């Protein structure tokens, strides 16, 4: 009898004490989402939101490379079939690069939404920079939606041109609240292009948002990677330009140019390296050996330690006027063999440490924005003056263009060589309605649809019939 008692005691005690073991298991590498509610965590979540852009699937490589690869600045010399599709302008909706890019941008948007919601709901008195945190997340969100529209939205004549020939307006799905539960993640339809522009402008509102940003972050950081008022206004001037809102584009560009302490670097080649010079680089992405990018790796040949996937195109090389100091930077020759192989770019060379900085907005672009905005409004003298600032820095004489079409063409060409390898060419051709230059015939329905990228196939499948694919795909 006593033996039986001992046995039962053993069983009972082990079972009871052991149930605690199950309840004591907690994640050691993550925190539960419900705990993201104190100012320190929210600030860290804002940094996490910034880091979404660092990914090689987004601004860390693919987003800006594809704008030149799809157009005529970069050729595909490597082996990724997915890159070949983009180069050949024959993208299928199951292309993995497109899918990853779309996914990464929306991950960034969700992070911004999370920060905005958590910060808005937080009433702690220690959260003194609350409004600034919310403002930075909103500007970031605007940037993401702007980037989505540039590839996947708009019609064959450009951006903000109204409905296309069939009366359809191509936007992207709008998410402005964080996804917290499974039901939050349910499929939504694409918004119209107009609604997306409205959201972007709301997130770049002068009084509600930009006023809450720090005036300038330059003093605090070695890179200009946190969004300050100058960067937000610069982004706003670019947004206005894409929308065809010339007056606003000019006004915001002026606001940026008039900020003290800025100038174009006298040596174009010196712009590039590990850290973007603060006097010209308004907003950048920072990289270091613990947070590397693979831009140089994708350009460089295997002899230089890369994978030789892409090269600068001969078309880009030939687009430079004689004497253009940018030519050797945009299309390397044997003269710079010590640093880079031929037919590459001197903008991204730090393959050993993977820490080339990737410019988001530069002062030179602001000058070109204002030049174009002025030209479109008929202020040709003002346009030429801004254009010449950029040309002179590159060692070129003043422009010879006189008429409005000539000035605009000059600006388009200047943008091509000034902003080569920085993710502008395809979008510029769309805005200028010049896709014919890269073989997209906007009059032929079998070709015009290539003005947009396809929505990823799995997005269409997983959204049921709610989401509509871009025409032609």
């Amino acid at each position, binding site marked *: 009898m006593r033996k039986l008692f001992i046995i039962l005691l053993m069983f009972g005690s082990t079972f009871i004490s052991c149930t605690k073991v199950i309840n004591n298991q907690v994640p050691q590498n993550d925190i539960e989402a419900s705990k993201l509610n104190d100012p320190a965590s929210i600030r860290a979540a804002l940094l996490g939101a910034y880091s979404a852009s660092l990914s090689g699937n987004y601004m860390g490589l693919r987003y800006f490379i594809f704008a030149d690869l799809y157009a005529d600045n970069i050729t595909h010399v490597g082996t990724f079939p997915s890159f070949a599709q983009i180069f050949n302008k024959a993208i299928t909706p199951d292309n993995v690069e497109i899918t990853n890019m779309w996914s990464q941008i929306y991950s960034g948007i969700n992070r911004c939404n999370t920060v905005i919601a958590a910060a808005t709901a937080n009433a702690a008195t220690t959260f003194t920079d609350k409004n600034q945190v919310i403002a930075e997340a909103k500007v970031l969100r605007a940037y993401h939606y702007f980037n989505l529209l540039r590839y996947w939205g708009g019609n064959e004549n450009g951006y903000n041109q109204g409905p296309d020939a069939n009366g359809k307006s191509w936007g992207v799905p709008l998410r402005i609240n964080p996804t917290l539960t499974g039901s939050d993640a349910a499929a939504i339809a694409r918004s119209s292009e107009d609604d997306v522009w409205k959201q972007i402008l709301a997130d770049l509102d002068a009084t509600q948002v930009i006023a809450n940003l720090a005036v300038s972050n330059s003093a605090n950081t070695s890179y200009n990677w946190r969004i300050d008022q100058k960067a937000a206004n610069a982004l706003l001037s670019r947004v206005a330009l894409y929308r065809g809102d010339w007056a606003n584009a000019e006004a915001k560009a002026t606001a940026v140019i008039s900020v003290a302490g800025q100038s174009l670097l006298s040596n174009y080649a010196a712009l590039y390296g590990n850290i973007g010079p603060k006097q010209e680089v308004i907003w950048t992405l920072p990289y270091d050996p613990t947070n590397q990018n693979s831009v140089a790796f994708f350009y460089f040949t295997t002899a230089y330690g890369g994978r030789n996937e892409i090269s600068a195109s001969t078309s880009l090389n030939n687009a430079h006027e004689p004497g253009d100091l940018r030519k050797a930077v945009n299309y390397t020759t044997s003269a710079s063999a010590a640093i880079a192989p031929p037919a590459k770019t001197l903008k991204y060379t730090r393959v050993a440490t993977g820490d080339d900085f990737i410019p988001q907005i530069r002062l030179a672009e602001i000058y070109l924005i204002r030049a174009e905005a002025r030209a479109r409004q008929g202020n040709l003298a003002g346009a030429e003056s801004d254009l010449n600032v950029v040309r002179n820095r590159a060692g070129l004489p003043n422009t010879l263009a006189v008429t409005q079409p000539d000035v605009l063409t000059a600006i388009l060409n200047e943008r091509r060589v000034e902003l080569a390898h920085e993710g502008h060419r395809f979008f510029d051709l769309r805005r200028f309605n010049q896709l014919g230059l890269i073989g997209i015939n906007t009059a032929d329905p079998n070709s015009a649809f290539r003005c947009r990228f396809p929505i990823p196939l799995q997005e269409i499948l*997983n959204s049921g019939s709610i989401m509509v694919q871009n025409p032609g795909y």
Partner: protein
Amino acid sequence: MLLLCTLLTVSQLWAQNRTIHGTVLDENGKPVEKASILAKGTKIGTSTESDGTFTLSIPSNVKSLIISSLNFLKKEIDLNGENQLLIKLEPLNLKLDEVVVVAYGTQKRKELTGSVATISGSTIQDMPVAGPDQAIQGQASGVQVSSQSGTPGGGITIRIRGASSLSAGNQPLWVVDGVPIITSNLQTIAVGGQGLNPLSDLNPDDIQSIEILKDAAAASLYGSRANNGVILVTTKRGANQKTKISFSSQNGIQSVWKKIEPLTGPQYIGLVREEVYNRYGNLIPSPYTNLDALVNALFGTGNGLLIADSLKGISTNWQDLVFRNAPIQNYELSASGGNDKTKFYFSGGYLNQQGTLIGSGYERYNLRMNIENKVSNNFTVGGILSLSRSQNNRLVNDNSIYGVLSAAVLLGSNTPAYNADGSYGRDPNSSVDNPLAVAYEPTISAITNTLNANTYGEWKIKPWLTLKSTFGVNAVNLRESRFYPTTTNSGRGTNGNGYQANTNFYTLLWNDVLTFRKKIDKAGNHELSALIGNEVQTYNYETMNASATNFPGNTIRQLDAGAVKSGAGSNATSNALVSFFSKADYSFKGKYLLGASFRRDGSSNFGANNRYANFYSVSAGWNISEERFLQGNRIVTNLKLRGSYGTTGNRNFGNFAALALVSPGFNINQLPGLSPTQLGNPNLSWENRKATDLGLELGLFNRVNITVDVYKNVTDDLLFNLPLPLNSGFSSIASNIGQITNKGIELSLSANVLKINHFSWDFNANITWNNNRVTKLSGQPFAAGFASWVQEGYALGSFRGYVVDKVFQSKSEISGAPFQNALTSPGDLKFKSLTGGTAITGADQTILGNAQPLYFGGFNNILKYNNFELSIFSQYQVGNLIYNNTRAFAEGMNSVFGQFATTLNRWTPSNPTTDIRYPRAVYGDPNNNRRTSNRFLEDGSYLRLKTVTLAYYLPQSVLKRLTISSMRFYIQGQNLITFTKYSGFDPEISTFGETTTAAGTDFLTVPQARIVSLGLNVTF
């Protein structure tokens, strides 16, 4: 003796007696010594002398005698007035009376109501394989074993009665000496598709038996981990006998059994020129002026001709350079013995298996001590301690174009192995490195230290009641290091790239089991055995790693030398399982059997709503051969019918999949960032499988045993990362969706076919038909791997793609067909329009077949003559398809990669072939001839002469003189011949490791080795 005389005298006083004289012989006519003779109904008996004779005086009312002897069937002889008897005994069919290890105990095979297969240790001994998982291939019905790749110490995929999970793991639970062990791949370094396999550190020579629990009655007692079946491994024990010392050695040579011929250097150059010419024809794009200039720009060195004069005529056969004949050695020394109080088994082993690819190899040391001690009549303690240390020198391979075999296949033959200055020859336009550089230059090693230990105490409270308490630990420590020097493409850019990691994964177990076994009625007709137990098991994982770049040369490879510390990290996780279980078995006269089991598991893995789950099983059996109408039947010597139904679970889906999580690591500018990474699902729960089994066991003539099982397993609530719209910010959410059904028939046969004089022939075989279907799937069908597809109504491992109609032979055919591409030309492939549209789009794809075999199995012939023994074991798999993605690259004829010699059959205007495998060569492949289609789908059926062993046992006369107990020499061949239509390196591959959804895919996977070895076993 005195007692006997007294009894005889007494009985003589009471009744008339008779004296029986008899001789007892065995089935071969030899006398049986020490057989016991019992007069039925009395206590009168005797035993036979050395010549088999006996004399017994019994009362005349005794009707029959019962004769019994060890290793023979009990025989009852009717006397019928005879006084002189000649009795022949039949040998025991060891199969029926064997004791089988089952969940938390043992049971006689006769009493089993579940489906259990046994593989004895002697069957898997002396196989030139690293671990027991590979050794059981083809040995048991219902168990499909296949190597993922030929890498030494590599992963093995095991499916018991089909795959029943999408993503929660399909490998069975391995229990070694009562402790479920860690079998997962712990690597942190990716080397293509291969993984590390902890089971390869378990020495097969230490194994006494393996039991495979296949149905719910057998496996349900393991509850939430038993969906994929359970494999019980019992290691060797000592015995109450004089100490035996055994030594085994095996030495062999491994070679590659198949190579695929590549194009020669000149043929390769001709192909690339044809590719470019077919693409541009006479429309050479500027600024190139002629075809040669364009070819040079695309394929050449950039500033010279495609081939310099000094390099013309070079033809490097890379496969010849990277494959080698590799030695394998295996040594084992063991001692086993004991007395009536203590039993022990000690062993030490050493295995060295070099890989057939240069620069790879696996080396292992093992040590084991199993001890049991009878402290008193009622109390036994025991312990097992096993240590192993293995070093795996790894290569990148499988599913990676940066691997050794991949580089050997994908680098053109026109590149020299070494340049004139001694440096490695490279193709500057290809991302593929020199295969010799990839093999020799980097260091990638994995050192695994494994500890397996348990101790137990067993208390016999009453003869029918036992309490056993076990404490066990299995700890795996993995130390990985990798260094890419500047002589490789991967290390050149960063001036050397080093990485090191240290991982610990250990599990602790404690259980108490109370076992009851008693005949509950006086006559002994009703026997009840039951057990009740509780168990707690925790799993703990921790890892840390560091990396550095910028090294001062390639000699010092420790991270201290790297000037730039590019990374450091650590993480940890754990889970716990608490259980209560019980089982009861009832048998009536050994004829009618009933069984039931129940287990309740509590696991930390799941949502708060679903922490606990119950699993149960019921089963019944009927030993028809025990019925009177079959008693003593000479033809049907065994007949048993059994059936079972029960539930098991699967919880293998990450430790915190149900929680909403925010993770660190999203850093910028060396500042820490957080981001939401996981959506929570508080309702997340186990996968649940209902298994039904019906089995028939038939024994004929006491020489043939046939077992047939028919089963149906339905697994519900499949754990799966359900895809979400990406615009939500998340790509998926952990969910329970879907249902998978496996139905099948297993058949196994073992027979003593012939036994005359000194010659005997034994045959055993097994075959399984398994039908697998995803019977329900919430959400969309989805793609996996390269060409695989998961869709409701189809089997797992289905392939989906385009269907090739034919090869376009003329321009008119192209204009008459649905639009494919503006540059489609004669020689390109025509794809079938399944939708009837005017253009071929993504909708023109369909299910093309699947990677599951129609049937699989093995068969073994064992021939013995005098002291010679020949065993021939073959294994096969029929009806499965393989997607040969290697050919999509090595026969793609569209870019810079090296190509197979089969491309000489390609379509050209002078060779207008209709073979859809070889369209025209064209740079950039504008028609996308390489898209996923049946062009690369092949029949993967194979029959392999797996193991042939010819052994010679030294005769007793010689052994006596050498005072050796036994000695055996053998010569053995493994994977000697493979019959298959598959054109790749090996039909037994899985480039994605143990996946089920993307099974049957081959992408640059290392083939199996053919091994010829000599061996010796000596026992003193």
